């Protein structure tokens, strides 16, 4: 193989683009999990967002409307999960898995008429001077707007969780729902909002794939990105900035894998495809070797159903 045939600047530039879908989905899932809800339906919500976003953007000719539609579709889809787990107290793991399967089938159904249609071309921003800096310019400052929106979203999530009362209440609900209820907070309502936020973000992540990155519709196009996002939240030990780092790391692996393939690497690419999961498992093992939940940082009520008794 020929390493020198890889254009490293181009590789690093495409890293941010490759990471954006999983970053969006993961930051949404992080908020959901901090509220104590484990939604394994990220993949299903992403693919629903992907087809809805693609369809709306093609029909209206506006990528912005496409993203808005994707966020709404993702949130609406996640509220199915919310209704089942928060009101009907169904098992969160099973419901989440069902949501993924349902989303894959549902998106294939409504996407029938959109196969083979070419999507919009989304413009990249160009800021004079900054975008023209050699090396850094193409890597950091010549992307489409959503790349920067996703980073802003991480910053906003971090600030809200850390500095605002709303964020404190959200964390409190994920930490001890009985105590939060005793203090008079509406556990179910707060969790539904967190679930909807997670769904909207996953929808945006899916739409980024179908509107910007590919850009067209194919069945099952998320191809496991939702699962990577779930792994990413654990990898980041439920901290927003670590999600950003992890997303770029995992995104980088994806891009590297494509480039190595093109450069004719002899090692099967499957090893690189597995690597995000292997890294997550490794990180989990290392973090949990301390035997304490505090070190792991997992919300204490993660995946537990809440029912206001008496």
């Amino acid at each position, binding site marked *: 193989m020929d390493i020198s045939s890889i254009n490293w600047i181009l590789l690093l530039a495409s890293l941010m683009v490759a990471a954006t879908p999983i970053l969006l989905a993961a930051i949404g899932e992080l908020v959901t999990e901090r509220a104590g809800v484990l939604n394994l339906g990220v993949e299903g919500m992403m693919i629903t967002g992907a087809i809805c976003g693609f369809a709306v953007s093609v029909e209206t000719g506006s990528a912005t409307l496409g993203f808005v539609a994707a966020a709404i579709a993702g949130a609406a889809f996640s509220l199915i999960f919310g209704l089942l787990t928060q009101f009907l107290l169904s098992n969160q793991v099973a419901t989440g898995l069902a949501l993924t399967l349902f989303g894959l089938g549902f998106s294939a159904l409504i996407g029938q008429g959109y196969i083979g249609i070419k999507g919009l071309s989304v413009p990249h921003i160009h800021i004079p001077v900054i975008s023209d800096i050699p090396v850094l310019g193409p890597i950091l400052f010549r992307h489409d707007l959503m790349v920067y929106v996703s980073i802003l979203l991480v910053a906003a999530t971090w600030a809200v969780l850390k500095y605002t009362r709303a964020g*404190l209440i959200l964390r409190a609900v994920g930490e001890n729902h009985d105590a939060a209820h005793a203090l*008079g907070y509406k556990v179910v309502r707060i969790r539904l909002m967190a679930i909807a936020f997670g769904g909207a973000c996953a929808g945006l992540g899916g739409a980024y794939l179908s509107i910007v990155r590919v850009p067209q519709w194919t069945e099952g196009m998320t191809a496991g990105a939702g699962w990577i996002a779930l792994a990413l939240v654990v990898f980041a030990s439920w901290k927003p900035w670590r999600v950003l780092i992890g997303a770029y790391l995992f995104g980088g692996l994806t891009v590297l894998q494509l480039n190595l393939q093109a450069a004719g690497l002899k090692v099967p690419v499957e090893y690189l495809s597995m690597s995000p999961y292997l890294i997550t498992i490794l990180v989990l093992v290392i973090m949990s070797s301390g035997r304490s939940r*505090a070190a792991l940082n997992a919300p204490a009520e993660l995946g537990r159903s809440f029912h206001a008794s008496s």
Partner: protein
Amino acid sequence: MTDLLSLQGLTKAYPGVVANDDVSFTIAEGEIHALLGENGAGKSTLVKMIYGLVKPDSGAMQLFGAPYAPPEPRAARTSGVAMVFQHFSLFEALTVAENVGLGMEDAPPMGQLSREIREVSHAYGLPLDPRRLVGDLSAGERQRVEIVRCLLQDPKLLIMDEPTSVLTPQEVEILFATLNKLKAEGTSILYISHKLEEIRALCDGATVLRRGKVVGSCDPREKSAAELAELMVGEALTPPERAPAAHGEVVLHVAGLTSEHVDAFGTKLQNVGFEIRAGEILGIGGVAGNGQDELLSALSGETIGPEETVRIRGEAVGHLPPNARRLRGMLTAPEERLGHAAAPDMSLTENGILSGWQRQDLTRAGFLRRGAARTFAEEIIEAFDVRTPGPHVAARALSGGNLQKFVIGREILQQPDILVVNQPTWGVDAAAAAAIRQALLDLASKGAAVLVISQDLDELMEVSDNFAALNAGHLSAPRPARGLTMEQIGLMLGGAHDMDVADPAEAHHIKEIYEEGHS
């Protein structure tokens, strides 16, 4: 004095049980009013109605003469009603300041809140560092967080649900001094407890609840503890008796026991050692979270360690798992009934098999002997007066007291040489508690070695021959239980940790009343 809060005919029914039936009483301004009753008498439901967590089916409440019906706790808090919960409503992974902020309406910014917490906590003798994680605090300190959270809102009525169950005697004195200071400032306190001496030392008036009904109200300072108990239970209780017996050889020998913690915020055991002779009951006291769960787990075999740390009749068993220890005659009953001592959704018969299959011979060639198992469960139900339709009932369906009798009975009927119990009467009504204590005494007088771990000091004084205290994972040297004063016990339990006294003279006065009641 004018009435602060008055309740008229409050009634609340749950499916199958009337939790409160036509409850009426009044609390005056600046009064410390006791709500007295056994577990399950309906005290918690009543205060939840006052705090807006539960809506009454019928009846009315008045606060300062105006109708009062809080739809949710927020409304109660804005009206000036604050509550310190029995099972703390705290978030372990959040800091003290964040915890306090969550319980307040319009909490100020964190910096200002931290300052206020420091000031208020020092003013009332309950120092707190607002930056610490609640998970790292002791039980007493956690309660301070709750109290400070209430005080910052300048309450007119403070509800305290069983506040002293997690405190050392010295900490209780300081708490009482704080409460008296609050009372002097005009705050009323609704004080819920089943500890009669405390109520006699602290309260101006008392309302007694039994099975959801008010059965009496009195001035607790004019009644004796026995009279109050009779009012509360509805019958005179006979204290447990035991035949004096000489202690035999050392059966259980523990030395150099050091362990990892069971859960993230637990306490490690530090070089714990003791021995128990045949026929002896050793009581281990201590405030919750000082290593009790870890000690039980190390003795039951759930945590295993070096061979020599635990010896049964000289045989080193520290490395053996639970089943092997059971075979050698050491049985355990952990604190948590549902989920640890018993599997909630399995029947009593199955729960009997889970612990007794070896000693009671309930399996053959890997198959269950259903008939024998049912007989075993029926024997337990019979011998320990477990009120249940039959052994086919799921453990979850039993009340706390009945399940506890079953769990303890299951171990005792296997005729252990050593029995280790943790919190044998936690949350159990007085009659069942007396029966369980009597059973432990009977077991010891038949020659078994019994280890009772408990937070209830009165219980330990009643049953133990020797008493030792567990504090921050360290076990004090055992001392004969007879003749120990509350003050000595308190010092063994680690004294007042780092609490201040709001008013030393007052604390001293309260202590005297408290000691009087005990002697």
